């Protein structure tokens, strides 16, 4: 038992986090809002150079063969800067789904081709799931993994129809995606398709949980800064207990959302079919924390927090959106609720890490 990150993992996180902090700022994010494609190609190229696209792809397929626990801190760092591009979703959700399809001997000739293009930084893949009404940045995807019933399809851009929806978060580019479920695009159906979709839901929920943790960190940091700079009644507003407590309350929730998210990343890596409980816990806790952070951090900024000019909106609105994507708090609480009431549920302290952590116990 060792619930820490390795030095390598921490170093990699630090490298990526510092790159993110210099490249992805409130100003560059606002610049995306008025840009045609709404994304920063130079940034995406840089992220590719750093190996993000290949991180979670097995070595046998030409990737780095790393695990979700290697990526989870990077996902958090992406949330912390409120990165608009769906890098986390791409690394943690769409690429692993392609890998699953290949691993299980499913799919068609396109799957290998698309993975190769992703590894080369030449293709972007978006994932649709019945739990999400829209797909973010669908307009810049080259390929779509789409579900219809139990079946999963890999569909090229020119075979889908996009219908734009306006998100409250100006960084998000939402589209509903429709397509004709033609057999030439089919990559999995029946139980295999359903199980791919279940795994995808967990990866999506984990990807958003990690970003929500990062978003909360980002909002707290901005608010601590503001409450130290802004003075009223001859002293920093942060000197007032009421203001301190607004942020301390979020900090407490955040500290208890992090380890839950890390356990979920571990579980998704080593035991994906048993990950529902861990993932739902992570998504629920991270969403709750980030929604509280957005409310309290707007409050700390006073009227300033209610303006378009104030950067807190970038983080707060993302939190409102991600808290509900890939299942909201209610959905995930309900999954836990059902699990707890199962006759054979593994309840009690010795099962915190599941049955797998107890192999030597008779």
């Amino acid at each position, binding site marked *: 038992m060792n619930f820490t990150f390795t030095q390598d993992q921490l170093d990699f996180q630090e490298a990526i986090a510092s790159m993110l902090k210099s490249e992805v700022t409130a100003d560059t994010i606002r610049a995306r809002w008025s840009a045609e494609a709404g994304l920063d190609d130079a940034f995406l190229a840089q992220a590719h150079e750093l190996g993000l696209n290949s991180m979670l792809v097995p070595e046998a397929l030409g990737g780095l063969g790393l695990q979700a626990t290697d990526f989870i801190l990077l996902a958090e760092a992406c949330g912390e800067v409120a990165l608009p591009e769906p890098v986390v979703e791409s690394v943690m959700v769409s690429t692993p789904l392609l890998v699953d399809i290949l691993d299980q001997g499913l799919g068609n000739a396109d799957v290998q081709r698309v993975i190769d293009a992703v590894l080369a930084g030449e293709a972007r893949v978006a994932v649709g799931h019945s*739990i*999400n*009404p*829209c797909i973010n940045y669908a307009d810049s995807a080259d390929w779509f993994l789409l579900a219809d019933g139990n079946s999963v399809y890999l569909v090229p851009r020119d075979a889908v129809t996009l219908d734009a*929806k*306006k*998100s*409250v*978060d100006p960084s*998000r580019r*939402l589209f509903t995606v429709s397509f004709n479920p033609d057999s030439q695009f089919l990559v999995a159906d029946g139980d295999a398709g359903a199980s791919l979709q279940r795994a995808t839901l967990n990866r999506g929920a984990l990807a958003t949980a990690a970003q929500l943790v990062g978003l909360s960190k980002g909002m707290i940091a901005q608010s601590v800064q503001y409450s130290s700079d802004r*003075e*009223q*009644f001859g002293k920093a*507003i942060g000197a*007032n207990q*009421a*203001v301190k407590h*607004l942020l301390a309350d979020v900090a407490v929730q955040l500290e208890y959302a992090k380890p839950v998210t890390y356990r979920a990343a571990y579980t998704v890596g080593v035991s994906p079919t048993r990950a529902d409980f861990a993932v739902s816990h992570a998504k629920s806790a991270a969403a709750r924390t980030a*929604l509280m952070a957005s*409310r309290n951090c*707007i*409050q700390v900024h*006073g*009227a300033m*927090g*209610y*303006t*378009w*000019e104030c950067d807190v*909106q970038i983080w707060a*609105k993302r939190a*409102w*959106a991600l808290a*509900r*994507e890939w299942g*909201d*708090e*209610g*959905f995930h*609480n*309900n999954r836990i609720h059902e699990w707890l009431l199962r006759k054979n549920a593994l309840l009690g302290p010795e099962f915190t890490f599941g049955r797998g952590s107890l192999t030597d116990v008779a």
Partner: protein
Amino acid sequence: MELMYTQAQQSFRSEVRAWLSENVPNEQLPSFDTAEGFEAHREWERTLAEGNWGMVTWPTEFGGRACDLIEWLIFEEEYYRAGAPLRVNQNGIFLLGPTLMEYGTPEQKERFIPAMASGDEIWAQGWSEPNAGSDMAAIRCRADRDGDEFVINGQKIWSTRAVYADWVFGLFRTDPDSTRHHGLSKILVPLNSEGVTVRPIPQLNGLPGFAEIFFDDVRVPAFNLLGGENEGWRIAMATAGFERGLMLRSPARFQQASKRLVQLYREHGSDVIDPSIESAVVRCYMDAEAYALSTYQTASKLCSGGSIGPEASCNKIFWSEMDLLIHETAMKLLGARAEIEPQTAAEFAELGTWLDGFMFAQSGPIYAGTNEIQRNIIAERMLGMPRK
């Protein structure tokens, strides 16, 4: 105690209902934070005024109906029931109007009240400054006496509706040697005066719902001084007390919202799997009723000659937190679609205006005195807890 409406109150309700059903526009007006919407709302104020429904509590000589506060509550209930437009005139009729009635000279009343009532002059409030937010006594914007004029220099901020409004009322420092809440006066300034610059400030939803106002040697006649010179603080507190106390947010607003929430819950009941939503819906409905009951109690007290005390600060916290819960719960009910800003009629039919309401609810615990400041006031003035 007699919790029954009188015959007269019931016929008043019928009269209001009948008039509103004849006159409320069928289509929802565009937001009054747009130029077009502002004028549409001004037009609606004219319609209200023509029917003498603009401000029912005002004396008949000013176009009112001399109603008491219970009748005002009944009017508000019918108003929200009818889905009538939000009041672009709110700052004038609810806040400045009552102050004018109490402190204005007969000439000032004659000059300002009819134009306010008709919607010809719409008012913004100018209290806050960049360095005077929660600490309003830090106001620096100066109004220097020069013969029978004041010369105003400085800046106000967060002035709601100032982008399209005609006048602003607020507090200015008239005694240059004064500090804190001494030496301030309440002055009325036309926003088209020479030297006034209004810079719109977009809010969370992108619309310029408030503005910064810059004053550069702006001259207004001393006639525009409301109440005694250097006595503005006391008068402003009367307005602030009124705002927090009663009229700013009438209970019907939240009772209608919580009723719509129940409706939303019924529509989505089958896909709701989160039991916390069920209890939140119930809580919202109960809170809206509790708020109504408390307001009826306060209104009854005022009708029988009592006054509003420090307990009014409870009201601001209660309604703003309730409004958050109502809208957070609606967002939960809409789930992943809650983030979508409706653009088409079909999207509006499905999503309503919950998202915009949710954003606006974020500001409730901030404006009209932040909830942190209100909690301090409750603790110190109502409960008598130590100040230092």
